[in-house]
Each structure stands twice: as C-alpha cells, then as structure tokens.
C-alpha cells in the first residue's frame, strides 16, 4: 500500500498529491510516469511524476479530475489514506544534455510534468526559457515553482486575466520573431497544444519533443494499447516514449486513439457522478 502524504487542491478539479513510494522516488528521472490504482478493482491510470524527493521517499503527482478514477482519487482520497498500487517510474526518461537554449512549454496540467524537466535541463547548463499557459487566472498553479528552475519564465492565460493574453504558442512565436536563439523545444500539455507547437516549429527546423499521453493498461510494454505511429513505425508510448520527436508523430492517429473509450468513460462518469464540470472536461 502507498500512503498519501499530502493533498492540495491547486485549482478547481486540479489536485496535487504526495505519495510515499521510496523506490520510485529514488529511481525517478525527468519525463517518467507512474501507474496508480486507487483500489483493488480500480483501473490503472498513468500519471506523470511531477516531482520526487528521494530523502523523504516521496513522489508528487498532479492530476485533473477528468474520468471516473481521477474523480474518485481527487474526491474520496485524502492525506493519510492508502492507494492500492503505485508502480513506476515507467517510460524512457527525457533526453537531457546541454543543448544551449531550450524552450520548455507547459499547457494547463502540463505545467506539472515540465517541472523536473526544467530542473534537469538547468542543472545540465542550459538556458531554460519556460512558457506556461492556463485558461484563466483562477486555475493557475506552480508559477513560483517553475520560476525557480527557469532562466526566464513567461506566463500566459487564454483570456488575459494574468500574464500575457493568448496561447503558449503565441509566446513561442514572439520569441522566434524577436530572433531569439532556440536550440530545442519541449512541449507538454493537451494534445491539441502539443500539435500546435509541433506545427509551428516544423518550418523553423527546431528539434521539438512532446510527451504523449495515450491510453494504457499496464504501462510496461505489455498491452500495446498506447501504440501510435511515429515516423511510419508503430511505437509503444509506455516504453519507447512517452517522449517523441513531435515532427514525426502521426497526430491524426494519436487524436483518434485517445477516443477509444469516450463512450464507456462518459457512461462510467454518468453512472457515478452527476457533475457537469467533469463531463465538460471529457468533451474537451
């Protein structure tokens, strides 16, 4: 069993949790994820590791209450409770070296997983320009935390209620238009945002990496449910990724594959929950 050491609601529907998992905390490298099972009969859900503290034996996850299991985790589990299973760290770690200047972009919930990546890149000697974006001011989180691991931090909101108005891609274009040297871009967030970044940087020929979040069962290379075409070849996101060269991801396929269980998932949420907010989340 894996104890929840702390819980904090960062924004409506966005929850941060600390979990006691000493082995995972010790082995974790940026870009890796873990699988959580709330209870014995729950599904296994993949969540990126947002931070780890080997001394405390603790890992941090940040998740959006979007499906049956994340809603249950956010609403029914509290500090001191135990999770049935947590396994990780899984996936190939993000490739980190001194690239020069790296723009790291986090959209919405994607702000959490870029934290260890920014930290790793900064430690490797890079100039790290971090762009984080949210829909509105009231759902922002981790601004200071990201600032502490960035050489420069740009914050945007879709509605302009905080920082620059617009999408993260607008901030990226601005950097490019200003003639800033960009050696690499790393983008994590909703698939639509990652694709937009990819489309923007392709003509600039700037190496761009994204972290894919397809559907998985085991997360260890066994089921192949996460497979997606990368450069004409079928790859397993759980073991070959989750990081891939954005310019060769088959995005149409990736988007289609995210929807395999939309019908079943909506039914499960409806059966368990009458909350409009959550259904809105699924639709997005």
């Amino acid at each position: 069993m894996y104890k929840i050491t702390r819980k904090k609601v960062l924004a409506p529907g966005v929850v941060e949790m600390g979990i006691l998992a000493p082995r995972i905390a010790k082995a974790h490298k940026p870009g890796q994820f873990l699988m959580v099972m709330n209870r014995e009969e729950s599904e296994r859900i993949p969540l990126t590791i947002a931070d780890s503290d080997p001394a405390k034996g603790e890992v941090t996850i940040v998740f959006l209450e979007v499906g049956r299991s994340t809603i249950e985790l956010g609403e029914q589990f509290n500090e001191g409770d135990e999770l049935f299973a947590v396994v990780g760290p899984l996936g190939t770690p993000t490739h980190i070296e001194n690239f020069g200047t790296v723009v790291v972009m986090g959209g919405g919930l994607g702000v959490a997983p870029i934290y260890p990546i920014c930290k790793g890149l900064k430690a490797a000697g890079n100039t790290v320009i971090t762009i984080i974006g949210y829909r509105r001011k009231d759902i922002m989180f981790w601004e200071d935390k990201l600032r502490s691991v960035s050489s420069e931090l740009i914050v945007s909101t879709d509605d302009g209620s905080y920082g620059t108005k617009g999408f993260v891609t607008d901030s990226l274009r601005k950097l490019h238009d200003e003639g800033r040297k960009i050696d690499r871009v790393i983008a994590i967030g909703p698939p639509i945002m990652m694709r937009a970044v990819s489309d923007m940087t392709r003509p600039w020929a700037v190496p761009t990496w994204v972290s894919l979040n397809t559907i998985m069962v085991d997360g260890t290379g066994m089921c192949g449910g996460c497979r997606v075409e990368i450069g004409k070849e079928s790859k397993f996101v759980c073991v070959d990724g989750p990081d891939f060269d954005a310019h060769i991801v088959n995005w149409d396929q990736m988007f289609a594959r995210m929807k395999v269980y939309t019908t079943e998932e909506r039914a499960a949420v409806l059966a368990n929950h009458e909350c409009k907010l959550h259904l809105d989340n699924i639709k997005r």
Partner: protein
Amino acid sequence: MAESIDIAALGGVKEGEKKRPRSKEKRLEIACQSVQARITNYDEVALGYGPAEAVAESMRCLECPRPRCMVACPVHIAIPSFIGLISRGKFSEAAQDIRQYNALPSVCGRVCPQENLCEAACIINDTNEHNPIAIGRLERFASDWQLLHADRESASVHKKPATGFKVAVIGSGPAGLSCSADLAKMGHQVDLFEALHKPGGVLMYGIPEFRLPKAIVQKEIAYVRSLGVNMECNVVVGRTVPVQEIMDGYDAVFVASGAGFPNMMNIPGENLNGIFSANEFLTRVNLMKAWTDNAAGTPIRKPRKAVVVGAGFTAFDVVRISLRLGAQEASIVYRRSREEMPGRGEEIEHSLEEGAKFILLTNPVKYLGDENGFVRGVVVQKMELGEPDSSGRRRPVPIPGSEYEIECDLVVVAIGQTPNVLIPSQLPGMATRWGSVIKVNRETYMTTVPKVFAGGDAITGAATVILATRAGREAARAMDAYLRDPGRNWNSPA
C-alpha cells in the same frame, strides 16, 4: 488432516485390500456448464470431478510399474502413485504427492495439454482406444480437494534448514513461482518481484476465469508464499529497481519475465480504434476484471462482430470472451487449416459449441476504418497450403485475387508474444536470440551473465504453463548446485 472419506462408499480400495483396476471401462467424462448458461457468465466451464467420480476414474488406472505417463510429463509427476492414493481415499496425500513435483497442480490440472503429454502416453490407449486415464482431471480433483479441505500449512512440507543464500526471482508467472517454491524448500531465502499489482503473471492476466478461476490461482500462490517466499508486487525490475542493484544484492538471480510483448502484423490500418493485441484485450478482461461491468474501473469494448486473428490457446480464449461480451458473431481467422491449429482440443470444441465461427485458410491484409477512426472491416485473402516450413507445418501461400471484406467492429490480434527486452537490455553481456529471447545453457539454465539464470517464456518465447513449470524446477535445482559450488563452469554454451 481433517477430512472424513468413506472410501468403501465411494467404491475405492479399502485399507489392506488389493486394487482390481477396471481399465476396460470408458473414461469418465467431466460435467460442464451448459452452453446456454456458460455463454452468459464467466464461471468455470469444466466443473471437475466430485469424490465419487474421481475414485471411479482412479480405479481404471493400472498403476503401471514402469509408467509411460510419468516419462511424458514434463515435470515427471509420480502419476500412478497419486492416482493410487485417490483410489484409497487419500485425496490430500495425493495432492501433497503431486506437489513434490509441481507447485501448481490446480493450475496444471486445468490448463496443461494432457492430451498430447501424459494422457497420450497412457498404456490404456493400446487396448481401450481413446480412453486414457483422465490424469489432468484427477490432478485437478486432488489439488482442489486439498485447497478446499485440508489444513495445508507449510509445516507439513519438508523444508531444508536455511542455507543463508539469497536469491532474487523476477516474475511471478508459472516459471517464477515454481522456481521460488523449490528454492525455498531447499532452504534459500527467496525474494520474488512482480511488475503487476497481483502475482501470477500469465495465470492472472492471460488465462480467462472460465478456464482458470483466479481464486484458485491465488490459493496456489498462497501455498508458495507459505513456503517462506517473499513476494513484492509493483516492482518493475529495470525501472523500479535497477538490474544492477539486484545483481549486487543477491547470490543468484532467476529471470522469469515471460513473453509479454504482443506481436502485431504491421499491416495497414492496424492502429485503428477497436483493434487490440490479445494481451490488452485479455488483461482488461482477466486481470482488470472489465467483464464485471460497473464494479471494475477498466472499460472494455463490447463487440457486435468480432474477428480474432490466430488459432492458438490465446485466440480461443479471446473468441470465447467476445461471445460472453455479447458478440452476435465471433470468428477465428486463421491462415492455415483446422489440422494445424495449435490450440488445445478441448478449447477448440468449447469454442465451436459456444458459437465461434472458423474462417480458415484466410489471412488479414488490411483494416478499414470509419470516419471516427474505428475499425469497420477487415480485408482478408484466401490461402492454400504449400510445402512444409521450418515448423513442419505446410506453409500457407496467398491465392492472388482472392481478397474479400469481412465486417467487424472488434479485432483482436492473437498471433503470439515475444519476451520484453527490458532486462536483457540492462545487462551487458546477456546474449539473446532474435533480440529478446534470453539464451541459456540448456542444462544449467544459466545465461551468459554469471549467476543469472532464466527460464519459462523468457527463454523459449510464448509456450505452455507446464514447460515454464519444468524450467522453473530444473533451474532451481541448477541454482542450488551453483550456490554450493559457484566455481564450476556453469554457463559454457550447451
């Protein structure tokens, strides 16, 4: 042992009496759930012998002095001996007898292909054709009886004094469990690591409930645990714990990580929604219990028309699950003919009874999708059989111009699994075949890395539970010898 058995009433052999075998009688069939009933549930199909049936069947056994069945059994269970104990009403003793050779008798009694092994070798076939002793059913009966009735503490098992050696076993499928059980009995400290959240490996995620109830698997595992084996789930060796840490912390290591990587055909459209690897489909249903509807968190796609590609054990499991999920039509698409099907006879029969269709000498060429990216059909090609290939079976050859379309909304690709590369990729010097199948010395089971042994599907590619069990046992014996005399040349290529 608290069990009262009136052997005279059951028609067996009384204390002090001599057995008069009734080998001329017909083999006693096993009761099964009716087709109409079982198609609506996931309960076990073959119901098993009761005590009277088991004794009656055991009374047919000649208890040969030179039993051919024992030779044919991959783990050489003392078959006449345990059947003799059943004839005499000593059911738990019979199970204990089997357990000396096989740590998982309730499992093997159900899923072992006895028809090609011990039962094929039974001498009764010579005089009473097609009526060998039902060895598998008797094994299942004795073991289940013990699991249900007897006080089966490890105290009753002969365990050697502690040796002080520490062994790590990676993977808790049949090979890992068997190896761990034997090593523990030999007095070694065994730490067993499992990547998933429940021990059992393929017994839990692969084989469906209606063929192998998970409660039975967990009871067998409890037995292995009772021998003193430490089991830790949620540990992916190579990720959660570096392989090197295992190498440094143990005197010997047994890699039994199975064959968990699903093979796909790499044909156009294979990544459409609704096309699954057998691993994914089975894991959702078996391990994650997606069939329990709302109770379980894991969703499953309910098919209307299912197509299953392949004809091994796995394919039949999948086609039968599809029917239970409510498919109006579920077909096996296989590129060879009925005779070449590698599946077990009973499974093929049960599938047909339950309404599965066989589309033989046919192979998928590409998949067709709808506007939302979901599969709506498969284009197949007819095949004919040519000259025998390396497997000895006649090679299927496509017939040009024979393509046609089959409508479907679910496809499961069940054409085999290969081992996961994680562990070999992290052990420099570990030799493999085809990039992932670990090479071992065929006598000692040692890999090309000193003190690391391997067995089960990890060294063969996907095979059977009983072969994995044998590898686990034989490797345990070799590892025991190695621990006592590590200086010998252990891993010269065999």
